[in-house]
């Protein structure tokens, strides 16, 4: 067990591209940290550098206070779970899990004991003599976990360990990973591209994009006060709605109509000298069927009327989708997100659609107009050029 510190770590490829650009992360002992971002954001590169599978071009990596840049993976005493599991197919489950112990020259009795313990934890005892080829995806995944935990390493590194499982199993395994980590209290670095996994598993989340760390924080911090458009759009499902807005006479003119600002926000925007053209972000749950909003709540928000395109009832909630007329929010951050989600080239995809989460009691129906209330106090405001969040003081850099 140890803390892991990435101090201005840079990965520069021979052709000059940066895989990771001055990454600074301090991971506390026993912490469960998630590296998340779209593919190609540098999260796996960062993980591989911690593992020692890729060289660090610049900066320093310290595990347990000791510089390990030059150490081979085997001398770093960390275990890794691979996306493909990477089980040794010619060995049984027992041999797979015993392999790291055998290499560590542990005596046979102790190996036996440790493997049995790990198998117990992972519910693999009855499978110990099977070969990986005859096992299901979930079982293989657990064997991969087992191989990592038998050694009681200083840290676990997990590279999208659940992404090859089907949806239901993934949720179960997510819980298992979480419990396992709490039980073993081992520092864990977990890479995923799935924001749900990131939100549910991590003590803290590191959002990366193009090799650059965008924001580090607890899941709730990232959700409530994203530093920029990219984080705002990446975290949360369904994603935050983004609308272009013009700040005029203390109201936002948007395609939904005029949205009134809270005094606090207006003062803050004036003080920080915000541009007039902005992007506002509204989370789906900050909408509500206007008829269900209590009278005294109404003045806190604005109401607009629009035709419901699609209504999805989830039982507990209803998701209503509206088409938004007029211009769409444009920004590099949003283009990146759309490219990652694969909606960039889908005609009439995510863009131009407003997603709202209404109470189950809502009477909204497909194809009919509906009155929807927006909680304007929860609106996030972004600079369309830099993508920076202009809403709150803590989200903006100190020097701004």
């Amino acid at each position: 067990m140890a803390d892991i510190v990435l101090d201005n770590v840079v990965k520069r490829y021979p052709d000059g591209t940066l895989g990771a650009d001055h990454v600074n992360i301090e991971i506390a002992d026993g912490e469960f940290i998630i590296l998340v971002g779209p593919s190609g954001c540098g999260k796996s590169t960062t993980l591989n550098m911690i593992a020692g599978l890729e060289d660090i071009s610049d900066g320093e990596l310290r595990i347990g206070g000791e510089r390990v840049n030059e150490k081979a993976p085997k001398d770093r005493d960390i275990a890794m779970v691979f996306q493909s599991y990477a089980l040794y197919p010619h060995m049984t489950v027992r041999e797979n899990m015993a392999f790291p112990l055998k290499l560590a020259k542990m005596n046979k009795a102790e190996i036996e004991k440790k493997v049995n313990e790990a198998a117990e934890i992972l519910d693999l005892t009855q499978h110990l003599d099977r070969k990986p080829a005859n096992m299901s995806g979930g079982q293989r995944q657990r064997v991969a976990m087992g191989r990592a935990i038998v050694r009681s390493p200083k840290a676990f590194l997990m590279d999208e360990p659940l992404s090859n499982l089907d949806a239901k199993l993934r949720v179960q395994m997510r819980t298992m990973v979480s419990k396992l980590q709490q039980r073993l209290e081992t520092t864990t670095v977990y890479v995923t591209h799935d924001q749900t996994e990131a939100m549910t598993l991590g003590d803290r989340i590191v959002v990366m994009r193009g090799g650059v760390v965008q924001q580090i924080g607890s899941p709730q911090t990232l959700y409530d006060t994203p530093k920029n458009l990219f984080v705002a759009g990446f975290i949360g499902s369904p994603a935050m709605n983004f609308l272009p807005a013009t700040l005029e006479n203390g109201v936002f003119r948007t395609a939904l109509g005029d949205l009134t600002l809270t005094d606090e926000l207006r003062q803050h925007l004036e003080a920080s000298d915000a541009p007039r053209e902005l992007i506002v972000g509204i989370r789906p749950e900050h909408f509500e069927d206007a008829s269900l909003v209590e009278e005294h709540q109404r003045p806190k928000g604005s109401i607009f009327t629009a035709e419901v395109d699609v209504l999805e009832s989830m039982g507990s909630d209803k998701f209503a989708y509206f088409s938004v007329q007029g211009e769409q929010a444009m920004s590099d951050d949003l283009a990146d997100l759309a490219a990652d989600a694969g909606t960039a080239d889908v005609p009439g995809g995510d863009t131009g659609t407003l997603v709202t989460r209404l109470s189950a009691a809502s009477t909204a129906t497909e194809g009919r107009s509906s009155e929807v209330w927006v909680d304007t106090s929860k609106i996030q405001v972004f600079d369309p050029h830099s993508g920076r969040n202009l809403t709150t003081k803590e989200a903006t850099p100190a020097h701004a």
Partner: protein
Amino acid sequence: MATAVAAPTRGSGQSAASKKTWWSVANLVVLLYALIPVLWILSLSFKTADTVTDGNFIPRSWTFENYAQVFQIDLFTSALINSIGIAIISTVLAVVIGTMAAYAIARLDFPGKKLLVGVSLLIAMFPQISLVTPLFNIERAIGLFDTWPGLILPYITFALPLSIYTLSAFFREIPWELEKAAQMDGATPLQAFRSVIVPLAAPGVFTTAILVFIFCWNDFLFAVSLTSTSRSQTATVAISQFTGASQFAEPTGSIAAAAVLLTIPIIIFVLFFQRRIVAGLTSGAVKG
């Protein structure tokens, strides 16, 4: 059964059936083409000296005399031992060296890699006959002529390109993540190679071993040029030096019997290793 087939599916059923017929015919032609000469030799080896030239496929009178005769020739027995020894040693060395070279070519980036691949390809394409005279002179000068190493060395040279090519194809198919996993589990590169990569490349290693063994076993050119006595003459050469019972008798029966005997080790070798060439040995390593 045909009546049970519904009308709409009959068309596809017919075409599948005709496809199957075609394949069977093609297979049969290939099999006959390859097997008739072998069966012919087998038939010759069982014929008596009088009936050898009668042209019958199935011998009229059967005899084992040819086989008995072959083993009475001292040269043949010692040649068989030479053949087995030389082929096995060459195969082992070529496969061991080839495994390491192929691994390097498949996995590592090092300066001169393309050159190495190019040179090994060049060796494979080199006409062997053009090397016979220089090799003959060199080996006589350094005392390798008519010794086991004198044959093993050129065999390894010519078998290596083959083994490097076959093996590097196998190594490329082994997921690299397995090696990374071994590294993370605390293995040195050599340990990872030995306990993870080599066992997984086993089918490739066995395939290569079979090919190399057959190459060494069948060679006649080097064997006839670089040997002169029973010390190192191989079976292929010994057969060519068979003589008949008298000056005028053709040793056809003995040659046929010896040829049949020579194919037996290869058949055993292939059957033995074929069981180890289990397809899909790597299944289960990564998501399948």
